[in-house]
């Protein structure tokens, strides 16, 4: 975990309202693991006051990138960053996906901008010679991101791109082809999708990990602002920023 003045290398638009921000930070790039995130102070004024959390999308030499959609003031400012500007970035934060357990096949399930952490994951999985199967969904073709993924099948609610329905339905329809392999599921996306994926995994007793979101104030465990209900102990909250953002599907109760 570092506090870095990261230099903006580039902001690239890779889709309707999907941007890649590439930043230079040797420390963060070299320590990062897939599924971890960074917390960015997007301006040096009180607007916005708090940092903004973003999954680490990929790393390359001493650079790391984030993939984001502009939804409000903070992301709007990020979208307009110029090469050479300095950004105050904290990271890498959180736990990340488990890369080395016993599985041959990685099933990656992304909903919309939930695709953000997967380019990095895919790259690492390739290194550890895992077989990779990706599913990416969105409301329409524009919301369906396949950037730097592999063997991607897509699903859109309006059928404009690939399977007509949501990405978990797509996965369900394909499961028989996968079932008998030794696999693990990795999911990231909107809460509703994660819940569906979680139910799907638990019911079929599939092993899976999901990257969750929560509103955050600090991003590193000091504010208690990002609780998620623990599945094993109803008197306990886990912290998305510190115990997560990646959780085993069995460990958390999503709202």
């Amino acid at each position, binding site marked *: *975990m570092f*506090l870095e003045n990261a230099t903006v290398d580039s902001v690239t638009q890779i889709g309707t309202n999907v941007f890649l921000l590439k930043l230079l930070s040797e420390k963060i790039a070299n320590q990062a693991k897939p599924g971890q995130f960074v917390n960015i*102070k997007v301006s040096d004024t*009180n*607007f*916005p*006051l*708090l*940092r903004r959390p973003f999954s680490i999308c990929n790393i390359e030499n001493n650079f790391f990138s984030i993939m984001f959609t502009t939804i409000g003031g903070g992301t709007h400012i990020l979208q307009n960053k110029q090469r050479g500007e300095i950004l105050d970035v*904290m990271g890498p934060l959180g736990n990340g996906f488990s890369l080395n357990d016993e599985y041959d096949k990685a099933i990656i399930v992304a909903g919309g901008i939930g695709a953000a952490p997967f380019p990095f994951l895919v790259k690492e999985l390739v290194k550890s010679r895992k077989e990779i199967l990706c599913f990416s969904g969105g409301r329409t073709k524009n919301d369906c991101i396949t950037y730097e993924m592999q063997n991607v099948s897509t699903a859109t609610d309006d059928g404009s791109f690939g399977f007509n329905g949501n990405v978990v339905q797509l996965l369900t329809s394909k499961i028989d082809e996968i079932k008998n392999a030794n696999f693990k599921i990795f999911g990231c996306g909107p809460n509703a999708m994660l819940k569906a994926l979680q139910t799907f995994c638990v019911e079929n007793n599939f092993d899976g990990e999901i990257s969750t979101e*929560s*509103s*955050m*104030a*600090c*991003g*590193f*465990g*000091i*504010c*208690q*602002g*990002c*609780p*998620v209900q623990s599945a094993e102990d109803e*008197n*306990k*909250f886990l912290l998305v920023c*510190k115990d997560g953002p990646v959780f085993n599907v069995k460990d958390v109760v999503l*709202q």
Partner: protein
Amino acid sequence: MSKIDLSVSVGPLKLRNPILLASGTVGYGNEIAEFVDLNKIGGIVTKSLSLKPRKGNSPQRVVETPSGMLNAIGLANVGVEEFLKTKIPFLQKFDTAIICNIAASSVEEYVECTKLLTTEKTISAFEINVSCPNVKEGGLEFGNDKKAVARITEEVKKVSTKPVFIKLSPNVSRIFEFALAAKEAGADAVSAINTLVGTSFDINTRKPKIKNITGGLSGPAIKPVALAKVLEIKRNVDIPIIGIGGIFSWKDAVEFMIAGASAFQLGTVNFVHPNISETMINDLILYCEKMKITSIKNLTGSYIL
């Protein structure tokens, strides 16, 4: 090595410098210690402790507001026992003031907590939170009732072997009356302020953004209010004050000392600039040099009206 003396005292408690980390904004110190050398600052105030562990409120617990944020954590904490067992060993390692913040829902619970904690020598002082806006039973209600504040102070003082600071609620008409009540009941100092009650709505769902409906407002937005409360206490009651509220830079901190604070606490800023408590030390020295102040103590209440 500078010739400026940054040491201050808050009643009987001596501090290396006036920089303290506010309750609830640094947990029990372990995470923030990765960014700050706790041996360099005045001290740290723990997250409010209650007798039994508290799970806290359901999410959403935090939301950003203009130059501030709302929180309704609900005093989530590990409880006194667990604190002594698993948190003290870490805090023990530091040569810095450990101020233990206690929040309870009854006078008896305040007393119980104090009894259990006061024997722990790592603890330098107690800060009694009579003003948390985010717990139904107790909390804010105490903060709005002078007699209750006096009573809690009195009872806690009876069993405490350490200095006792009373953390006041700003959500009152005349905060100085509460400072006076605390003083007369034997408090060694008051901490001002806790958060202001606030809320915010999602205009699409028409629901409050904070699950608890209301939360506590903190950050730069509240600084002018906090400064006015500190000044009000300083002008009306002779008791040491720990200034809190919206401090985001050394300049803000200096304002609080000028207004009457003997020391100050950094809260929300730790979320954004976790190392600022350490980096501001040098800025304070430079300011004192510029102002020809040899001891930062002399800043306290040095306002010219």
